[in-house]
């Protein structure tokens, strides 16, 4: 056997450069020319605060987004779907706390038609009544599917536990059965007129632009996007944490052979003044691999789980630190105790070896994580919606490389106070007797 080879230091790398333009209608255009990326990724973001949805009509923004490509003033719904497919387009649209995101992938030679069809979907959707009813019904079916899935059900309960009652963040982005049933075509038409338009919007295009008049095609497509009633949105504010969030909620899912387990607390967004750099490093060290602190015990030593992951989840404003995974039902209490112990113990500090491994992982995987047009477009669009500069990622990676143990420890202690919101989704009859007395804070049981 040959000797173990040493590793040469990585070549310098920086986040792909961006060319910025302003389209005639006022839309900001960000172009990434990425040779060899033959499928172009286009993203359109329109800032719009989800919290401004009228009470009782939650899901209005998400349903409007899903209806953008279900018929326009120029094309019937089926005609439009066929046209987009014949141009090789894949279009998706959704919302976050900070606005609308439209996401299009298309082979290079279809850029022109794709830009025109995206402009049509954004500017002239017709919201035919039958399509509105259909999309709302399909959301109701989706809610039932989410309820049946343990990870989705846990996420919904976590939002309700972590954030103050009445805060928009405590309710599902795409609405509840009650709010979705309350929506009408008129609500959607009015919402589109006020909230979807070129003011403050950014278009990102990433891919191999060789031989393409990308600027010309996008000008021709999106340069005339007009929305006379579009109102600029106020900046989102972080959600208000629930005063009683330090508690345990067990969602009863009879017959579950595993318990879905989620432990969380409020966290920062990427514009946090103390710097974003420590957060992905801490998440990696705790719950980013089979060798991380959590899986070293719960997976590799105990065999309780296929894997548990930690992540800081930034919103446009505010965020959360979430650790989630599933464990064999019989060991729920044991696994939760061990997990909370590991998360709390990290407040005593990380080790220099952990810092090194975490920094090298986060910094050195960046070239690979941002190697495709899709990934670059996603990141640049996220920056635009979060109001962060286009050089944020480069600066962030430099800060990761320079991270100290003090900064890492301080950042973790700032977020993790030991007050946890815990959600368990599992078979209450079998696991409840073994949980009592072994969980932090009050324990309540809710129905699926």
């Amino acid at each position, binding site marked *: 056997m*040959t000797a173990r080879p040493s590793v040469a230091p990585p070549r310098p790398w920086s986040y792909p450069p961006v060319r910025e333009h302003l389209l005639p209608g006022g839309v900001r255009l960000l172009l990434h020319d990425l040779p060899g990326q033959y499928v172009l990724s286009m993203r359109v973001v329109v800032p719009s605060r989800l919290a401004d949805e009228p009470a009782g009509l939650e899901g209005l923004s998400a349903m409007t987004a899903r209806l953008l490509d279900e018929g326009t003033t120029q094309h019937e*719904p089926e005609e439009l779907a066929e046209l987009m497919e014949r141009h090789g387009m894949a279009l998706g649209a959704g919302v976050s706390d900070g606005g609308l995101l439209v996401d299009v992938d298309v082979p290079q030679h279809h850029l022109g038609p794709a830009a025109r069809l995206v402009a049509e979907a954004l500017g002239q959707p017709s919201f035919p009544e039958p399509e509105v009813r259909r999309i709302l019904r399909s959301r109701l*079916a989706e809610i039932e599917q989410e309820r049946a899935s343990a990870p989705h059900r846990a996420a919904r309960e976590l939002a309700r536990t972590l954030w103050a009652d009445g805060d928009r963040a405590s309710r599902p982005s795409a609405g509840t059965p009650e709010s979705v049933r309350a929506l009408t075509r008129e609500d959607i038409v009015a919402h589109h007129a006020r909230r979807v338009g070129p003011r403050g919007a950014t278009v990102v295009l990433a891919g191999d632009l060789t031989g393409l008049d990308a600027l010309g095609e996008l000008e021709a497509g999106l340069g005339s996007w007009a929305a006379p009633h579009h109102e600029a949105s106020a900046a989102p504010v972080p959600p208000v944490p629930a005063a009683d969030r330090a508690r345990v909620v067990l969602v009863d899912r009879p017959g579950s052979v595993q318990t879905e387990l989620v432990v969380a607390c409020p966290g920062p967004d990427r514009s946090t003044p103390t710097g974003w750099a420590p957060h992905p490093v801490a998440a990696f060290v705790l719950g980013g691999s089979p060798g991380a602190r959590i899986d070293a015990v719960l997976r590799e030593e105990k065999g309780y789980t296929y894997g548990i992951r930690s992540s800081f989840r930034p919103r446009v404003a505010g965020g959360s630190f979430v650790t989630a995974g599933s464990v064999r039902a019989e060991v729920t209490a044991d696994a939760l105790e061990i997990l909370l112990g590991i998360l709390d113990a990290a407040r005593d500090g990380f080790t220099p070896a952990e810092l090194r491994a975490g920094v090298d992982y986060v910094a050195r995987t960046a070239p690979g994580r941002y190697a*495709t047009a899709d990934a670059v477009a996603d990141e640049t669009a996220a920056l635009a919606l979060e109001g962060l500069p286009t050089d944020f990622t480069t600066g962030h990676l430099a800060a990761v490389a320079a991270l100290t143990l003090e900064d890492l420890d301080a950042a973790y202690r700032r977020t993790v106070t030991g007050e946890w919101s815990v959600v368990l989704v599992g078979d209450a009859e079998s696991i409840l007797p073994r949980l009592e007395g072994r969980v932090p804070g009050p324990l309540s049981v809710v129905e699926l």
Partner: protein
Amino acid sequence: MPLDYPVHRRTLPNGLRVVVSPDHTVPNVTVNLWVGVGSRHEQPGGTGFAHLFEHLMFQGSRSVRSGEHFEALMAVGGRANATTWFDRTNYFETVPTGALELALWLEADRHGHLLDAVTQANLDNQRDVVKEEKRQRYDNQPYGTALADLYAAVFPADHPYHHPTIGSMEDLDAAALEDVHAFFRRYYAPDNTVLTLCGDVEPEQGFDLVGRYLGPLSATARSQRPPLPQLGPLTEPVRVERTEAVPNDRLHVGFRLPVDESAELFAATVALDCLAGLTSSRLARRTVRREQTATAVHASAWGLLDGVSLGFVVLDAAPGTDPADLESALVQELERLAESGPTDAELEASLAQSERAWLSALASQEERADLLSRYTLLHDDPGLVNTHLDRVRAVRPDDVRAATRRWLAPDSRAVVAYLAARSDAEAVA
């Protein structure tokens, strides 16, 4: 017109097939290995073993301690994983260029000398982990066992594709240390493996490095039987019904298809696109948009090696719809497609979507490496990645009609129906 991704290929004296595809746009290299063993090689009583074995490949080898494979690669900016499928097991990592030799050294150690380090404790631990994987991905998911039911319904009981890769709890429990040794000796050898380097590396340099680290491994794989002959379509419909706590009734309708990379499979894939694989496909227009008897429809075709592939359509019934009506709609649309073939617009949409999906897959260095390994191991020609779209483009309307008649006849369907358990109150009402 073919694509022009560079493909260089060489076979080492020990039988290891090596492919190098330079791409210097990012300072990374993907190392991707396909071993010619998957769940299709498992024997009765030993289901799930190929996948359990894959887990043990991360638990240490002669010079690498348990868990060190992941740790060593991640700490230098690598991302690594492995998966098991019917026809193969793959292992892969993407590393900064300067860590390529480390990656090859780690692969050589476990692909050559795993058995020095395998222990009963590691086997027991990973058996538990795999059982949790099975619970998480299949047993605790609504509809999670539907595909396993479909394999069993579509393929004969003694066929290699009759059982799922994850296997059964009983068989996982039965796996013993001596099975690990026998399995490694039988299947894990350079002459049953393809190694692809894709990324920031030149061909000669790549071949030299692979030769240096994996050249010393011995050729020991036992010769494998040739693939089974093509299995014909089912001769009569098969039906499996399960009543479970699922949110809505869902039908999975499966068909036997021609083997991977055959012209007939390309044609059958287009037929499935026209039927339910596109937003504008016939069943989507009819059942989702117009009649609103379904909330969603999908279709897939999986190319497989051992004498048959799998095609299936999934239909989610809208509340209040009798799934039998949905199934009738599917049968009618199959008959219509068999009668008149696809329209030009359908063919164009299917091709355009295939083109985007294929180019998107190749856009990622990781997936490109995986596809190069795939075509080398299964078809002995990595260059097929460059001509795949030409073969898709060659499909004519008559081919689609013929494939629909031959392979997607209503009587050749296997239906796995997952029906939502009604509460007592609803049942009475």
